[in-house]
């Protein structure tokens, strides 16, 4: 069981990037890069030499590793599909959320470590928007905890099964929408951030890693995709609670679902434009309110 979980966690992420890319390409009428391009990029980067700015310090070099480990640990806390997470204890979702906080601390600090104005800009935006997404995430948690009476992700996400009884569904739907926005923002996708742009002034995540190169950049790309998977898995497990009793099949279903969700993201990215930076907080506040109202509905 643990094996499958690890395999998915370690192997699947780059594929998601590929799927998103492919979807966008299809919408744009291009052939687009092959699905496995992301794997190749990361492998190449890991083999390349490093170029490091003199202004940087050990924090700059430690950050990618810390990020990767943090995201990986977070990945161990979420259930992939119906089967329980390898690490499940009451209150694990708090650790889950704070691990992302840790990774953010280091990414943003590393960005400022380079002394580049653009990276400072990026990290400032990252830190700012996180102040809205984190509460949203916790609203989701308390809503689900109230619904299921449990404090562990594995059990909490089970409440997705309630999506199909009319009484309990509406709040959960709100929560899922909010969660989706959080997902987009945390993974710096359109409409919050555009991973493919090269206009530094408008970037968040990409701006923060302008100075990373070689293996460091590889690690960052990898952990970014892993973060995408982890957050997707939360949404998927909650919103698409399909499963047969058999663990192996469940995992396959789960993988399929994550790919579908990736396509959905791709669709969103192709049909929407990126919001102006000033507008982003409104969107995130919207997510906050959605989750909040979901919670209120559940409490009522």
């Amino acid at each position, binding site marked *: 069981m643990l094996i499958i979980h690890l395999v998915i966690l370690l192997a699947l992420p780059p594929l998601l990037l590929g799927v998103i890319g492919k979807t966008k390409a299809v919408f744009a009428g291009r052939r687009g890069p092959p699905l496995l391009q992301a794997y190749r990029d990361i492998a190449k980067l890991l083999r390349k030499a490093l170029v*490091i*700015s003199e202004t940087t310090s050990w924090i700059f070099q430690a950050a990618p590793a810390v990020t990767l480990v943090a995201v990986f640990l977070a990945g161990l806390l979420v259930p992939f599909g119906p089967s329980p997470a390898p690490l499940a204890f009451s209150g*694990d979702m*708090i650790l889950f959320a704070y691990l992302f906080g840790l990774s953010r601390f280091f990414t943003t600090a590393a960005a400022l470590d380079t002394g580049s104005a653009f990276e400072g800009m990026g990290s400032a935006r990252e830190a*700012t928007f996180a102040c809205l997404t984190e509460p949203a995430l916790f609203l989701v*948690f308390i809503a689900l905890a109230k619904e299921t009476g449990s404090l562990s992700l594995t059990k909490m996400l089970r409440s997705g099964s309630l999506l199909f009884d009319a009484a309990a569904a509406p709040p959960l739907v709100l929560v899922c929408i909010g969660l989706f926005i959080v997902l987009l923002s945390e993974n710096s996708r359109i409409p919050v951030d555009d991973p493919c742009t090269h206009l*530094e002034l408008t970037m968040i995540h990409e701006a923060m890693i302008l100075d990373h190169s070689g293996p460091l950049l590889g690690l960052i790309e990898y952990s970014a995709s892993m973060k995408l998977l982890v957050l997707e898995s939360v949404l998927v497990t909650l919103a698409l609670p399909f499963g047969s009793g058999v663990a192996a099949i469940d995992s396959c279903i789960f993988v399929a679902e994550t790919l579908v969700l990736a396509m959905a993201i791709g669709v969103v990215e192709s049909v929407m434009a990126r919001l102006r930076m000033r507008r982003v907080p409104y969107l995130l506040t919207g997510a906050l309110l959605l989750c909040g109202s979901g919670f209120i509905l559940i409490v009522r």
Partner: protein
Amino acid sequence: MSFYLIAWAIVLSAASGLPLLFLKRRGRAARAGQLAGTGILVIACVAGFVGAASALFEPASVSYILPWPSVGDGLLGLDPLSAFFLVLIFFVAPLSSVYSLGYAQAGRNPRTSRRMQLFFGLLVAGMSLLVIARHALVFLLGWETMALSAYFLIASEDEKLENRRAGFVYLVATHCGTLALFGMFALWRMATGSFELSPVSSMEGGALCGIVLLSLFGFGVKAGLMPLHFWLPGAHAAAPSHVSALLSGVMLKMGVYGIIRMLGLLPVLPVFWGVLVLALGIVSGILGVAYALAQHDLKRLLAYHSVENIGIILMGLGTALLGRAWGRSDIVALAMGGCLLHIWNHGLFKSLLFFGAGSVLRATGTRQIDKLGGLIKSMPWTAAFFALGAVAICGLPPLNGFISELLIYLGIFGGLSQSGTLAALTSLAAPCLAMIGALAVACFVKATSATFLGSARAPEAGRGREASASMLLPMGVLAAACAAIGFAPGLVASALDAAVGSWNGKHALALPGIATLAPLNYIGYAGIALVSAAALISLAIALRRPRRRRELGQSGICRSGPTWDCGYAAPTGRMQYTASSFARGLVGMFSWALKPSPEPTKLHGAYPAPVVLETEVVDGVLGRVIGPCARVLGALSRRARRFQQGLTQQYVLYILLALVVLLLTLIPAGGLSGLAAAK
């Protein structure tokens, strides 16, 4: 036994200033005096620490008589709750005293050194006395000793006007609080019939309400609760850094101790009070960190973070009160445990951070973040410790801050399993706490990076040099403590259980152990795994051997050049993103509370004239409430002076008027006609 250790510790630390007092002010004698004083203090604190640590696990609370004939003898007592706070005092105080050896050498500033040494010892003694006091007046004695010595420490560099001003604001604030405590204890006496601070099972509503409100006010001023925090930033900025460390790390906690103690003595309070305390905590948490974000002064920033952390502590306390009102022992155990542990933790990392800030100030001579930068190269150890402290104070795993916040979270979530809408709504505190956490991350990324990372923004930052060993050692110890609690939270669990038990003692809730309620060991393992894995990976990258030659650049596996900066050839330090601009977005988000100074006019024309942008955020309470009130009072007294312009005629007239007015009071008694009636 342990009690006598503590008593001796108090006496010794009170006396620790004497050697320097009776030695020459300058030169070697002064140095010797400082060393002696510090030595005495350290010995005292070690003794006290041993005593407190052992008392932490002595179940029964013992009490002793303190002879004080004027007020009828006072009571002292020692229970795990007191011991818990004593541990903090006796742990941080010696460290900051050692730090002062390097930071404020007696020979260097002869005028202040005596005062500092003396009142530092008195501060420690006062705090420890009030913690073991079981009698209102003894408590007040310790309290005032603490408050006044703190004042003299804050104002110790009194030739600077701003320090005097900050000191005065502090003094007035603390005296206001003390007077509130006078009232509170008088009420206590009225309600319980004695000054003895022992649990009461029932109390009439009015007195209860009054006592709770007055203690929230009186202690809240000292703790730096949000509307009452106004003295705090100025005082912490003005005080010498080792003092600010002790003030922020320990003295604020004495206010919290007061609240916790009084609420522990009172009978179970209705839910309302729990909600109130929780709300207070949320407010001072969020606004505290918001103000911190807007600061340019490193020490003021840290001071506002104390406000924030006090808020978190109160959130824990409020939740514990709710748990007590609901009769939910698990909530009490978790929330109170988190509250208490956060008190320890904040004591540790806040002192650590102030030490770091002090070293920076000592080296560069400025507290302005926007002038610093790149100090990590000149002062690597300080930087490392500061960064660790930053991670800890943000409550991020794997350090101690996370543990306490986790406990508080779990306590808050406990409300979800309580029936009733209100109970569920209280769990909205969790998102607020999350927001506080995220804001704290932003703020400390700003502080750490702008101070230590990147490159120097102004010549001051160029002057950085590593702090002396006597300053690094305390930081190291504190950092180690932070890490230890983070990686092995199981160690503190039993201490927490004991303290919570003695707080909750008489309310017969059998408390489950915290270790059974919270996944402490999971967290510990996760932390260890995280750090070791990250270390391995970055090591792997650093030591990695290239497979094929041509992939290497001309200069081997790792080349270094200037920051790319999107192709700009010659980036300078002044082009970096400043701390202010980093925080600008968030400050904008909180402008409703912070009211930042308005932006300058936009640039005009093809060749615009140079424009200076200075943002400033004045403290809301001090600037927009206290200030006006003081002005009104001043105007009032000016008006009153008009009535005393030196004319004897006026003065005689006043006598006549007083006479007439008082004679009018006879009218109810029949007045003059009454006199006539006496015919």
